[in-house]
């Protein structure tokens, strides 16, 4: 039994309506320098519209490139782990270590190596999205049905054939589950990178949040956060759509 279409659209819209009502009520009682009213945020969007749009594009490009780098390295790493158990044992602990690396600590290093702004944001986005891609791809490649693996080996298939025909297609639902997590994380990663590594040229969402904080312009901060949320949502939907295209038809996990 499927939910009627209008309810599927109405439900999130109703949540938004109630949330904005509650927000308005709360902001009437709290100082505007701590919590801006929805109207103040709308005004900030109006007066900083061009900057916000440019900053969203810059941050979006950094997050996207970071996600691409993380995907290439994560999937490549998973293939290496699948190929060599020794490589897996040798490298996996350090992949885990990468995940715990605070960007704040290495931002000066990234600035010295690559310069201010987008390079730090890309590096930071790649750093935080790498691990979910690696683990999901790794788990996916390892999840092939042992009987099917045994059958392929009986036919003396090569490692590459086993990957191409069996393990890689079978890993896609796992991979896309990891990619959906990584898609949201890459936006956060890019913004954190911008927090510590941007000098405002080009303008980006992390810089605008900082600028709003320094100028006590809470409206601008919330507008920038809103743009970041839109960005993360767009990434999530793109990855989910891609997942549905590639695996949705034969696996229920593709579009979850």
């Amino acid at each position, binding site marked *: 039994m499927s939910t009627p279409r209008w309810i599927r659209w109405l439900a999130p819209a109703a949540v938004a309506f109630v949330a904005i009502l509650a927000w308005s009520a709360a902001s009437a009682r709290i*100082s505007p*320098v*701590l919590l801006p009213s929805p109207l103040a945020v709308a005004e900030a969007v109006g007066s900083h519209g061009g*900057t916000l749009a440019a900053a969203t*594009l810059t941050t*979006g*490009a950094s997050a*996207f*490139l970071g996600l691409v780098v993380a995907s290439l390295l994560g999937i490549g790493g998973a293939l290496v782990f699948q190929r060599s158990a020794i490589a897996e044992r040798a490298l996996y602990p350090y992949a885990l270590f990468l995940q715990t690396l605070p960007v*704040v600590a290495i*931002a*000066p*290093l990234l*600035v*010295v*190596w*690559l*310069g*201010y*702004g*987008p*390079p730090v944001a*890309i590096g930071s986005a790649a750093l935080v999205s790498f691990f979910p891609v690696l683990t999901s791809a790794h788990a996916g490649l390892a999840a092939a049905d042992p009987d099917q693996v045994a059958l392929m080996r009986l036919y003396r298939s090569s490692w590459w054939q086993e990957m191409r025909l069996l393990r890689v297609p079978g890993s896609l639902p796992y991979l896309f589950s990891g990619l959906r997590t990584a898609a949201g994380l890459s936006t956060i990663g890019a913004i954190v990178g911008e*927090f*510590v*590594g*941007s*000098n*405002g*040229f080009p303008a980006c969402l992390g*810089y605008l949040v*900082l*600028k709003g*904080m*320094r*100028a*006590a312009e*809470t409206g601008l901060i919330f507008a920038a956060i809103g743009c970041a949320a839109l960005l993360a949502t767009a990434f999530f939907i793109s990855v989910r759509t891609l997942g549905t295209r590639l695996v949705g038809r034969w696996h229920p996990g593709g579009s979850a």
Partner: protein
Amino acid sequence: MSPVAIVAFILAACSGGPSSMPAAERSGLTSVKVALNWFPEPEFGGFYEGVLGGHYTAVGLDVEIIPGGPSAPTLELLGSGRAQVALTAADDLLLKRTKGIRAVGAWPGFQLNPLGLMVHEGSGPADFAAIASMTDPQVAIEVGGPFQTFLWKRHGWEGVVQAVPYGGSVGPFLADPGFIQQAYVTSEPCVARARGAAVRFLKASDAGWNHYGSLVAFADPPPPWAARFVAATQQAWTAYLEQPARANAEIARLNDQMTPGLLDCVTEAQRPFVLGQEGLGAMRDERWEATAAALVEVGLLPAGSTAAGAWVELRDAPPD
């Protein structure tokens, strides 16, 4: 975004911004990149005036100013060749030198440390000593940072005054008349005043935490044109203090947070800190040793550390 735009973006990102090298070489000027340790603000006004007023080109230097931000590893940029002049603070320079960074301080933009505490004029404490006698005093500050460590140690605030993290916004200050927070005289007090708050600024220098700020640093040993850069900087800052309008307009163009009112407020507020008691650009050994001693006191430098060799007087040096 099209694939072409993405590639262009990567290239732009990787090239580290436009370079003025070819133009400089054509005109016979030495190309010098100056790395700021914060966003473009009036605390760097004299450097912008140096570019706009031709003070640097007059001594054969083609200066490009690179803005910084929260994480501006300016002294490290000297080593990588991405900058030839680094803006830093005297305490930071001494710390980094013990970590193997080869740099020397050569000209202080700020005689007095622009750091301090910001309190409300009417309801706040009159000075540092008065804070301890308040009931349950709280100070929003970089917890565990050198300034906090120094204040608590020097004033015996351990267990008396509670340090709470400072998030970078003056919002909580505006909302609470009892709020005490760390501040730079070049930033938070003017932002708070623009929002109608009456502010009193307690100078860190009055508490004994007084390091030269906006300090020009070169690689160690300094390049042959260093004395010329210092002389032009002294001239440019003198001109800026007299007539800040041109440089401030450029700062406003680069950093749109700097509204006209804010620019005027900061330019006025920073003046006594730039000049101090000894005047623009002065450096004394006692001041450097006091900074070294303060860093030893908070445990950031090993006992017995001095500032020997960390700074160089170039104002009277003959031109190269």
